[in-house]
């Protein structure tokens, strides 16, 4: 008996100390229900029950566009129903970290209710693709430890028929995507073989021409006679014709117009002056019947 008495006093002290340290907020009798449109009758689509010691609910709560989400619970401090200053249901998007608080309406005894429609969700959470995490935060002034825990997941389902909601991300200063100009492709020539074949075909016409002239009786037999009659005139005349072709070649290769034109002027004068004499000699041969 003595032993038991000495045993009991420290036990009482210990338990008293324990209750002092464990002054904390919590909740019980939480009932979560998702109900459809009123026309469906009072039947709730999804009803869950939990309290502050249950782990996070395994399956997410599906929340459609016409559903109303209701949460009822009783907050307590140290086991006694009491009204806290802060009783929020916080919905959090895990990818972006955005949170939206929904304060519960709490009566004096600790009975708390909350009703949310999908239209009350902020747009960034309403269009999210993954499940939202819902946590309850129950706390107040004083030394009691507050309660904060993830309690369930919410999957927001949008009505596929309804018009899609446009959400424009706000402008934030940062680097913009890189742009590299795509150049037009250079002009291309056909394969060199093709060009060579046709160039050879063209070049082949020159000997064909000269051979056909020879066959038809072409000759330069009067050359010695012409040179004997007017050597300088003929030399300069034919030379100026050849020189003109040379000028054309130089204009193609390197010269510009201002270098070419004076030379053309010189050569044409030479051709004109020598040509009268040279062609006069040709006329004399024609009049003599030799042409």
């Amino acid at each position, binding site marked *: 008996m003595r032993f038991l008495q000495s045993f009991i006093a420290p036990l009482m002290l210990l338990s008293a100390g324990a209750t002092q340290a464990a002054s904390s907020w919590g909740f019980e009798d939480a009932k979560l229900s998702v109900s459809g449109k009123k026309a469906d009758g009072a039947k709730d689509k999804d009803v869950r029950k939990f309290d502050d010691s249950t782990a996070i609910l395994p399956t997410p709560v599906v929340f459609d566009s016409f559903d109303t989400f209701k949460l009822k619970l009783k907050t307590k401090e140290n086991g006694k129903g009491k009204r806290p200053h802060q009783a929020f249901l916080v919905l959090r998007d895990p990818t972006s970290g955005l949170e939206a608080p929904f304060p519960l309406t*709490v009566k004096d005894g600790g009975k708390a209710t909350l009703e949310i429609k999908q239209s009350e969700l902020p747009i960034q959470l309403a269009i999210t693709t993954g499940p939202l995490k819902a946590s309850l935060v129950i706390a107040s002034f004083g030394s009691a430890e507050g309660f904060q825990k993830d309690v369930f997941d919410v999957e927001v389902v949008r009505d596929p028929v309804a018009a899609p909601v446009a959400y424009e991300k706000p402008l934030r200063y940062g680097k913009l995507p890189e742009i590299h100009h795509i150049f037009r492709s250079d002009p291309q020539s056909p394969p060199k073989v093709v060009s060579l074949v046709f160039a050879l075909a063209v070049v082949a016409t020159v000997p064909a021409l000269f051979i056909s002239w020879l066959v038809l009786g072409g000759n330069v037999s009067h*050359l010695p006679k012409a040179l004997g009659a007017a050597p300088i005139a003929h030399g300069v005349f034919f030379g100026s014709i050849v020189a003109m072709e040379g000028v054309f070649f130089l204009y193609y290769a390197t010269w510009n117009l201002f270098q070419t034109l004076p030379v053309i002027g010189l050569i044409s004068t030479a051709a004109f002056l020598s040509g009268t004499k040279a062609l006069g000699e040709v006329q004399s041969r024609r009049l003599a019947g030799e042409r």
Partner: protein
Amino acid sequence: MKFLISFVVLFWAALVHAISSSGDRLLVVLEDAAEKETYSKFLGDLEGRGFQVNYETPKSDSLNLFHLGERSYDHVLFFPTKSKGLGPHLTPKILLDFINADGNILLALSASQPAPSHIVSLLLELDIHLPPDRQGLVVDHFNYDVLSAPEKHDVLLVHPQGALRPDVRDFFSPAAPGGEVIAFPSGTGQTLGAGALLTPILRAPATSYSYNPKEQAEAVDDVFASGSQLSLVTTMQARNNARFTVVGSAELLSDKWFDAKVKKVGETKEVGTLNREFAKQLSGWTFKETGVLKVNWIEHHLNEVGQVNATSNPKIYRIKNDVSYYISLSEYSWDKYIPFTVPESDELQLEFSMLSPFHRLKLEPVLTSRDSTTYSVSFKLPDQHGIFNFKVNYKRPFYTSVEEKNTVSVRHFAHDEWPRSFVISGAWPWIAGIGATVTGWLGFCALWLYSKPAKGSESKKTQ
């Protein structure tokens, strides 16, 4: 004697070790002179950094932010006042004119005094929202200081938040080797609009919220804002780089909290507060001692192979030229210019654009000197001729904006810059044709001038 005076002057000049890059005239607006004592360490730090501090009450007659069209002060520091208005010299319009004239403002609010209506109007202009009825107290039942606010939970202990995003430089995180925190006693939180010019420095912890102590003392059923949507310290940098900071708690800047010891609920040991260092970084940013960028010079030139002595910054280029662009940037840090390094995942970009960018390229740092960094990029001009601009548009949170535009003409190929026809293989048949024609013509001339008719025609003639 002269030597002594100059020595003393030089000695004092050497002591000034930090100075704002945009002027040192600071006006402090307080209700009464006794408040100077509560903020003596903060104001003393400001004077030590080289600011010339003037103290005025809001209703005083000698208070004039402008004189003859110019600003008479470069910076203004507002402490909470009890009066509902701020007097005829600090109307919202005058304060906005002050911001438009590149003046910086640091505003401290308090939960115990409702903000004056002039301040509320000014904040609304900038899309910063205060709690309704201008009464709001931020509390957090999970991050409060048990030594000073065990019941009311209105002293928040916040860890320095680090960089806002990985590509934004962090100016506001004092070093906390022993787990020190920033104390935010009895302050008002703000909510921010969606503009890009507003940036929160200190966001409230996730479990905190703002409530009206007069009307919502029992329970909160309609919360103004909570968690990270509540901004405790907000900054706004206008497009002309004027800076405006709102500190939700003026007591954060007071002497009592500069070197206090706090203990967070749930922790076992006491830590010091970082308020003094945080206040220094905050006022340093607001009064343009940090985060100011300067462009020293810009140079671009032709970068083709085999060129000689390209001129610097020519007015005209040709399409498809290879061009190099160089820009030199410095950052002002407390009292001198230092080389500017772009934050890790951020890029300094050059846009080569006519009406829209044809190129947007990353500028790489090539040269660092004692007080500047040179960034450069080399690229090929587009094959579109016209009037183009080299544009560097670097606007980031907490840095002054850098907008540089250099206009150049880009001409098309000149008639003698095209490839010659003999290098174009498709032209070879045509060149052969010309050669054939020339040869045929010369042959014909020789034949016509010097030929003797063939025998057959002679007989025909004498018919």
